[in-house]
């Protein structure tokens, strides 16, 4: 049996998709084969890590809150020399900073939106005939072709369906954003961010842009701060840059 077959077997076992007879056989094999056992435990650990990563995220946020508190309340004290050096550097940088900031601050929310917004692309275009009949696939096809009104019409029919609600809400929000309908985009992207799903991180970024487009600068900034504070966020760097410009 090769690695791929082992792998699929483990998945079926952990998903409780194995019939009883096959399950007993697999468990027997697990006891006898130490290599398979290691691979299985490794796989189980990974599944556990993914299901529990919110704990890790909480600890990171806790560290961040601690840092914020001590930064404000001054437990970390810098030496006097460092303070003077920092002050001198600050004076030099401030002149340059003011110039650059003035340049960026003169931009409107709409201009910032245009600068940072780029369409979210679905991954692979090739689809088979059977799937073409499905609403989600049809919606994605319309979205990929830039037919956003049509994609909204298709995706909205899937909202409320347990398996498709989140991707449908995400793409509906994106479609509204493409049409520059900020309030509607906010509504659907907010819906996406309120659930733990694979689209959550993307939805947060696009929601911040939707807020910007809706001239809700404070809400955009608040969301960008939370993106910025997540070290694993795909859009962390972009959020940092945009924050500097809207503050």
């Amino acid at each position, binding site marked *: 049996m090769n*690695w*791929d077959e082992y*792998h*699929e077997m483990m*998945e079926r076992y952990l*998903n409780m998709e194995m019939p009883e007879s096959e399950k007993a056989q697999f468990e027997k094999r697990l006891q006898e084969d*130490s290599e398979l*056992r*290691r691979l299985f*435990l*490794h796989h189980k*650990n*990974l*599944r*556990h*890590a*993914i*299901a*529990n*990563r*919110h*704990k*890790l*995220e*909480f*600890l990171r*946020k*806790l560290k*961040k*809150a*601690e840092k*914020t*508190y001590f930064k*404000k309340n001054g*437990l970390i004290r810098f030496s006097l020399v460092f303070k003077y050096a920092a002050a001198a550097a600050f004076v030099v940088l401030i002149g340059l900073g003011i110039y650059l900031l003035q340049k960026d601050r003169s931009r409107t929310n709409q201009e910032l939106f245009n600068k940072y917004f780029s369409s979210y692309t*679905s*991954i*692979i*275009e*090739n*689809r*088979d005939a059977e*799937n073409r009949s*499905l609403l*989600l*696939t049809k919606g*994605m096809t319309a979205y990929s072709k830039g037919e956003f009104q049509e994609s909204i019409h298709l995706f909205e029919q899937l909202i409320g369906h347990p*398996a*498709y609600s989140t*991707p449908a809400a995400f793409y509906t929000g994106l479609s509204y954003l493409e049409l520059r309908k900020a309030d509607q985009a906010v509504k659907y992207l907010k819906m996406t961010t309120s659930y733990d799903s*694979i689209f959550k991180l993307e939805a947060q970024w696009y929601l911040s842009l939707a807020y910007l487009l809706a001239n809700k600068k404070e809400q955009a900034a608040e969301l960008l*701060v*939370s993106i910025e*504070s997540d070290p*694993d966020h*795909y859009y962390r760097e972009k959020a940092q840059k945009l924050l500097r410009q809207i503050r």
Partner: protein
Amino acid sequence: MDPLAPTDHQILEGIKSGNRKILNYVYSSFFPQVDRFVNANSGNTFEAKDVFQEALYSLFLKTIDNRIRINRSFGAYFFSSCVNIWYAALNKRNYAFEDIDKFQEEIAAEKQDLKKEMNEIEKIEIYISSLNKLDKVCRKIIEMSMSKFTNREIMKMLNLSTEGFTRQKKLKCFRKLQRIFKQEPGFKKVIDELG
């Protein structure tokens, strides 16, 4: 009382969801008191920081498991958790306290849980760090696959070509993850634990 301060319920909900503002609020409202207590009882601010974090993390675990029962104000509850944690730490250093006995069992059990929890977090960190080094598509395929999505569902949601392609791609991603995992600094420790 500050009318703008969050209610106890909002604080607990905020801790559960890791809300940045609530965590900052908890630090600024309760840390000074805990710090003073630890400093007045043979400790220092660095130890107060550990106690505070441990208490907050324990509270977070209880909120996500819905195990939290508070029959007094959040401040009083949280402060007494910190006191218990600090007493337990002092007890380890052989300090004698008159009222420590009544907390003993409860604290010992919580400490044990927390130690296990920290080991688990270390492991989670290694796995998640490996996962984060994968490209976006692979990461999503693995996350979905681990959340019991079938190949067919993954294919639909990620807009991949066929079920067969999705299956192959998934296996490829898992192999890639395995390779990355082996390069993680904590890899050996995890593997040793697997036996």
